[in-house]
């Protein structure tokens, strides 16, 4: 018995483009259209278009919106102006990560939370549990599609389709305007380590928006990009993947996300635990490593130092932009120094690796 998979409004477009569809967190999504490596490199050198409509959008409305959001998240949403975006973890009482998400401020009494597809139901339940009067929470995920346009040529590509001055949409800002005549939220965010935009659109207009953006992308030699390259792009940029690198058993401090924790902003869920952990010092930290031979580490492979098992790989893959194989793993602090030698056990044999600085890849400015 297989459960019926969700499909985004762009399912037909993926079929037409020859996308290879796989199951991902209950969704039928394109893993690749041509080759994961070619798609990855297209984003690094030019531009790529992605369907990420599986992501969840939750609208928070009402006079108590900010106070609810501040209680739920570790970062400080009070410093947001209208049209600004914030990346943040949402923590449990013990500092574990319920989800990592983006907070969009539309107005003092209207926000949007963009959450991981696999966490939509869990997050809604968590939010309702902690909700108070004076705030409404609405799941807008089904009626909202999301198209990402990523790469150094994304601004010029998008500019051909809109009267909005794209150059004025700064990093982690958004604006509302027509793209190809379709009302869109244009957000300068992404999950690739490149300049780029995420375009939120009503699901019923998604196919038209995709067609227009695809055409503009294709006209300059860009490519449609599947989840396969999305994963290698985000890993090179050391962006965490929920369920792999972070979850309810890991804290933002351990995950290298201390910059997202506003310890003194006022009370939030997990604050006491995080302050305590920060004071005592973390015992392990999510570190990047590079394989020193040709082997490829994958999630769940064991990490060894001499004969002691010291951790587990949370993400691992070839890095097409770096021509080596990389990964992330939680390592004990004393074993996490840059250049420290570790070993990854792959199919019963240990392979040499070393701890390296992250991000593995940084886009040239």
């Amino acid at each position, binding site marked *: 018995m297989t459960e019926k998979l969700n499909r985004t409004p762009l399912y037909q477009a993926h079929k037409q483009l020859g996308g290879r569809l796989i199951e991902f967190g209950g969704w039928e999504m394109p*893993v*690749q259209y041509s*080759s*994961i*490596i070619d798609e990855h490199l297209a984003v690094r050198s030019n531009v790529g278009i992605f369907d990420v409509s599986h992501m969840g959008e939750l609208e928070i409305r009402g006079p108590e919106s900010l106070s609810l959001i501040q209680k739920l998240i570790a970062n400080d949403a009070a410093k947001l102006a209208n049209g600004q975006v914030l990346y943040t973890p949402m923590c449990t009482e013990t500092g574990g990560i319920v989800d990592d998400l983006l907070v969009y401020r539309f107005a003092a009494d209207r926000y949007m939370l963009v959450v991981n597809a696999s966490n939509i139901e869990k997050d809604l339940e968590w939010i309702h549990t902690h909700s108070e009067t004076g705030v409404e929470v609405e799941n807008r995920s089904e009626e909202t599609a999301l198209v990402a346009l990523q790469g150094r040529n994304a601004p010029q590509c998008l500019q051909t389709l809109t009267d909005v001055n794209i150059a004025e949409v700064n990093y982690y800002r958004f604006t509302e305007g027509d793209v190809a005549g379709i009302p869109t939220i244009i957000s300068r965010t992404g999950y690739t380590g490149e300049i780029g935009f995420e375009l939120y659109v009503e699901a019923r207009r998604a196919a038209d928006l995709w067609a227009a953006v695809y055409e503009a992308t294709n006209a300059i030699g860009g490519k449609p990009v599947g989840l*396969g390259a999305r*994963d*290698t792009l985000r890993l090179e940029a050391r962006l965490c993947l929920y369920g792999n690198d972070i979850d309810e058993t890991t804290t933002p401090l351990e995950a290298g996300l201390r910059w997202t924790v506003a310890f003194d902003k006022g009370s939030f869920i997990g604050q006491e635990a995080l302050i305590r952990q920060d004071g005592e010092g973390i015992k392990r930290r999510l570190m990047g490593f590079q394989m020193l031979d*040709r*082997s*490829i580490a*994958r999630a769940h492979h064991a990490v060894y130092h001499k004969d002691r098992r010291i951790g587990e790989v949370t993400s691992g*893959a*070839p890095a*097409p932009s770096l021509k080596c*194989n990389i990964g992330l793993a939680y390592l004990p602090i004393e074993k996490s120094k840059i250049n420290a030698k570790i070993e990854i056990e792959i*199919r019963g044999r240990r392979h040499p690796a070393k701890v390296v600085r992250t991000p593995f890849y940084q886009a040239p400015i």
Partner: protein
Amino acid sequence: MFPADLKYMESHEWARREGDIVGVGVSDYAQAEIQDVVYVELPEVGTIIEQHQAFGVIESVKAAFDLNTPVSGEVVEINEELEDTPELVNEAPYEAGWMIKIRMSDSGELEELMSASEYQAMIETEENE
């Protein structure tokens, strides 16, 4: 579509007989499915392997797949080119992308493998499912 002089396994490896020696690789269908071969792990020369056992691993960007042995015997040669250029498996799966050569211990095992037309029929059936 598939070379008629080769024998095939259900797991998409091919076998080419040259006297007592059998060359092994993966089919064009398999390389197209895997795409972007980024790593091939092969056994050492001298390893004794048995039919249907895994002799190595082929990896794409996303995943690793076992390579299965078409005939029992001793590994007498491996394709060392694949260490630096695993993409040969994509570019020329029946020629430069070969993987190992086995001195077979029982030539009867070759008869258990599929012919090109049988392999073709199997793939068509799989694709229509």
